[in-house]
C-alpha cells in the first residue's frame, strides 16, 4: 500500500506507541497517549476507533486473546496488541523521528 512509504499517521504512531509496552483497550490507549505526550495530545473516539480499525485492516494490530490484567473484568473491553509487522514499522518510524530530532539539534532548533 502506498501509505506505508509515507510513514505512519500521527495518531497511528501514537497508538502503536501506546501498545508497544503492553496490550491495552481503547480507554487505556487514550490515557497512555495523554501520559506519553504530557497531556498535549487528546484524541477523540472517532480518531481512536477510526485509526484502530485502519490498523486492524492493515494487519498492524490484532485483538489480544486474553486480558493482560486479570482485575479488569469488563467483558466489553477489547484489548489490542501489536503484530510483528507493527513492531518493525514502529521501529523504523522511531528511527525516522530520531533522524529528524538529531537534525533539529544539529541546527540548534532543539537543545540536546
Amino acid at each position, binding site marked *: 500500500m502506498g501509505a506505508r512509504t509515507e510513514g505512519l499517521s500521527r495518531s497511528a504512531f501514537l497508538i502503536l506507541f501506546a501498545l508497544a509496552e503492553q496490550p491495552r483497550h481503547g*480507554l487505556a490507549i*487514550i490515557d497512555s497517549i495523554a501520559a506519553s505526550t504530557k497531556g498535549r495530545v487528546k484524541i*477523540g*473516539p*472517532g*480518531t481512536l*476507533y*477510526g485509526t484502530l480499525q485502519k490498523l486492524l485492516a492493515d494487519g498492524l494490530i490484532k485483538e489480544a486473546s486474553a486480558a493482560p490484567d486479570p482485575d479488569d473484568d469488563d467483558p466489553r473491553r477489547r484489548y489490542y496488541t501489536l503484530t510483528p509487522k507493527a513492531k518493525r514499522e514502529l521501529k523504523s518510524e522511531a528511527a525516522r523521528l530520531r533522524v529528524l530530532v538529531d537534525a533539529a539539534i544539529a541546527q540548534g532548533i532543539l537543545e540536546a
Partner: protein
Amino acid sequence: MAAEPVGRRVVRRLARLAAYVYPQETRIGDFGDVAAHLWDRERASASAFRATLATLKILLADTIKGSFMVWMTRVVRFVGDGGRDVRLAARAVRRRPGFGLLVVLTLGLGIGASATAFDALDRTLLRPLPFHESDRLTYLALRERERGIWSSPWFETLERWRQSAKTLDQIEVFTQSSVVLHGASGAERLDSLSVSGGLLSMLRIVPVAGRLIQPGDAEAGAPPVVMIAEDTWRTRFGADPTLVGRTLSLGSAPQPTTVVGVLPAGAKIDTTLVPAFVTVRLRAREYPRGQFVSLLARMTPGATRESVETELRAITPTDEPGVGTAVPTALTPGELYLGDTFSRGVWLVFAGAIALLTIAIVNAGHLLLGRAAARRHELGVRLALGGSGLRLARLFLAEAFVYIAASVALGIGIMVGLERLIQSYEPRLFMTMDGAGLEGRAIWFILAIAAIATLACAAVPLFQSRAQDLRSVIDAGDAVRSTAKGSPAMRALVMTQAAIAVLLLCGSGVMVRSFSNLMNVDIGMALDRLVEVGATAPGPRYSTSEERGAYLAQVGAALKTIPTVTGVTTSTQPLLSTVRSSAPWLDGEAKPAEPGDSPVGLATVPVNYFDVTGIRLVEGRLFQPEDTADVAVVNAAFAASRGGHVIGRSLYTAARPEPWRIVGVVADVKNWGLAETAARHQVYFLQLRLNPGVFNRFVMRTTGNPSVVLNEARRRIADVDRMVPVMTTQTGEDVIRRQTSQHRFAAVLLSGLAALGFGLALSGVYGLIALNVSQRRRESGIRLALGATRHGVAATIVRSGVLLVAIGGVFGVIGAWLVLPYVEVLLFNVSPSDPWSVVISLMLAAGAAAAAAWIPARRASRIDPARTLRT
C-alpha cells in the same frame, strides 16, 4: 451508583450521536464511553463546566477531522476499485465481442441520431441570437392566419410601430438584396444585405476594421456607403487594411461607394445568407413592398414577446394597407426563417429520434438482461461468496459504462457524419454552423443521455438479479432455468419497443404518403424540363428603350441556339410563383376595393408561352400570332368564380383604362405553392414584344439535361455583353425541390428513424424469443416426447412473439393517434390518423415479428427429445 453529572451525560450522548457520522465498521467501540472517559480526565483538573467544554472541543475537532478522513479513504478506495471493475468489465466485453458490438451498435445509433436531432433543434429553434442582450431581441412579422406564413408590414405600419409601441425600444430592418460589383474582369452580382441605419449598432456588432453603418448614413443626402463582409474582404481584397475609406464601383448603375468598415464573419445577421456587402437602404422611398423585410426589434426591459404582440395588435388598424387579415407576431429566428411548418417538422424529427433512442436503450437493457440471465449462476456464486449488493451494482455499472463509452464514441461519429449529409441536403437545419462538429449544448445533451443510458443499462439487470433470489439459483442449479418463461421485465421491454416502433412507422407512413401526394399533385404545367434565366438591360449601358429591347432580343436569340432547347418564351412571373397584384374586374362589375382579399396573379407572356410551359387549354383558344395586344387568358379558377362565362368578356385592370378581351381559359397552375389547395385566380396578358422596362424571365424547354442547359445559358448571355451580370437562374426541378423540401425532409428523416427503430425492435423480439427458446429446451423436449408435432411447437413460440408485438403495436397506434394531430400542418392530403398507415405498420410489425421468432422457433422444433430429457 451515583447519578451521572449532567456534563458527562451530555458529552456521552453527543459522542454516541457523532458516531453515526462514521461508517459502520469504524464503530468498533462505544463512542459514548470514550467521551465520558475524556470528561473524567478533564474533570480531574477543572470544573465540571470546563471539563464539558474541553471534551466537546475534542469531540468536535475529532468528528470533523476523523469522519472526513475516513470517508475520503472510502471514496478513494471505492473509485480505485471502480477502476478495477471497469478493467474487469472491459475484459468481459472483449471476451464476447459479438454481443458487445451489438450493444454498442444499438446504443451508438440511438445516441448519434438523437444528438443530431437535438443539435438541429438547438441550432434552429432553441439557441438565442448571438448578439448583445439577445433575450431582449425579437423578430416581428405579420402572420397570415389561413396559410401559416409570414409577411412583412409596409413602411407606414413600421413607422406606426416605431412611434407608438411602448414595449419596443427600437425597430430595425434588413432584407436580402444583391449588388453589382464592377471590376477589371467585368460585372459580378454578389449577395448583400440591406440594413436600416441603426441595425448594426443595436446589435452591438464590433467591426473588424473601420466603423459600422450608422443612423446618419441612412439620412437623405448622405453619401453612399457600404460595409464589406470579412470573408469578401479577405478573399477578394487580401484583407487590405487601406480598403476602408476607399471607394468601390457598386450598383447596376455604377456609383462610387465608400467602404466604411469590415463586418465580422461571426455577425450572422441573416442566417440564411452570407452577404458579401452590407448596404444602407430601407429608407421610406426604398422600402420594398413585395419583398420580405426582416424586422428585428429590441424590447424594453420587462417586455415579453406576448406583451409585444398584444400591444402591436392593439395599435395596428385591421384595414391598414399591407396588413389585411394578417396579425402582428413576435418571433424567434427559427420560427421566422423556417416557418411554422418547418419548425414543427424539426420538433417531430427530434421526437422521433428520442423515440429511437428509447428503443435503443431498451434494446441494450434487454440484451444486458439476457446476459444477466445467462450469468445468473456466476452472480449467485458471487453473492454467496459475500459479494454485497453494492459491489454487484458497481459491477453492472462498470459494464454499462464500458458499453456506453464505446457507444458515445460511435454516436459522435454518426452525428458528425449525419450532420454533413443533412447539411448538404437541407442547409437550413444547420445554418448557424461553421462545418459540422461538436459544440456547446450538444455535448451536454450527449453526456446527459449517456448518463441516463448508463444508469438504465445498469439498473435493469441489477433489478432483475435482486428480484430473483440469486442464492436460490445455486441450490437449484440449472433446473431453475427451465421455469423461466421470458421474465415479465423482458416481455414488457419488448412490448415497449414494439409500441414505439409502430408509432414511428405510423408517423413515417403518414409523412411518406403526404410527400407522395405532394409529388403527384397536378401542377398544371410540365415543369420538369424547364429552365428559367432572368435578364435585364441595365440602365446606363442601354439608355434608350430601343437599345434595351435590342439587347433582350439578342439574349433571346442566343438562348434559342442552345442545343436541345426546343422553345424559348418569357414571363414577367417566376416559375411556379406569383407577384401579387390587385384584382382585375369584368364588364358589369364594380372596381374591387383595395386591398383585395383574394390576390390575383398577373403575368405578361408572349404567344408561345403556353406551348413552351405545357399549360393546358380548358376552353376557348390560346393566343395566336395574329392577335393584337388586347387579349387575355384566365385560369379555370377565375372562370369558375364568374360562373364559367368569361370568354368574350372585357377585363379591366387598374394599370390602363382600355379593357382586355378574354379569349380562353387554361388549367390552374400551382403558382401559390404545391401544397396550396384553394385554386387562386390567374390572368395572362398577351405581350407582343419584350417589355424593355421590366425584368424579363426567359423560360426554355429542353429535351436534355436542364442543369447543362442552365450553364450554357449563362455562357451565352455573358457572350452578348460581359458587363451585364446574369440574374436568377433555376430549373423546374429546383422549384419543385424548394417547394417540397420541408415535406421531403420530414418524410425522409422520419422514415430513416422508423426503419432504424423497427430494425432494433425486431432484434429485440429475436433476442427475447431466442433466449426463451434456449431456456425452454426441456419444456419443448417434453412436449415433443408427449406427442406434440414439431410444427405445433414452433407455432406456439412464433405465436407468443407475434402476440407481444401486436399488443405493443396497439399501444403504438394509440400513441400515433395522440401525437400525430400536432403535426397536421405538415401533412398534405392525408389525415393524421390515416388508416392505411396504421394497417400497414401493424401488418409489417406482426409479419416481421413472426419472421424474427421463426428462426429460434425452428431451432426449438428440431430438439431431440430423448437427448434433452436425459440431461
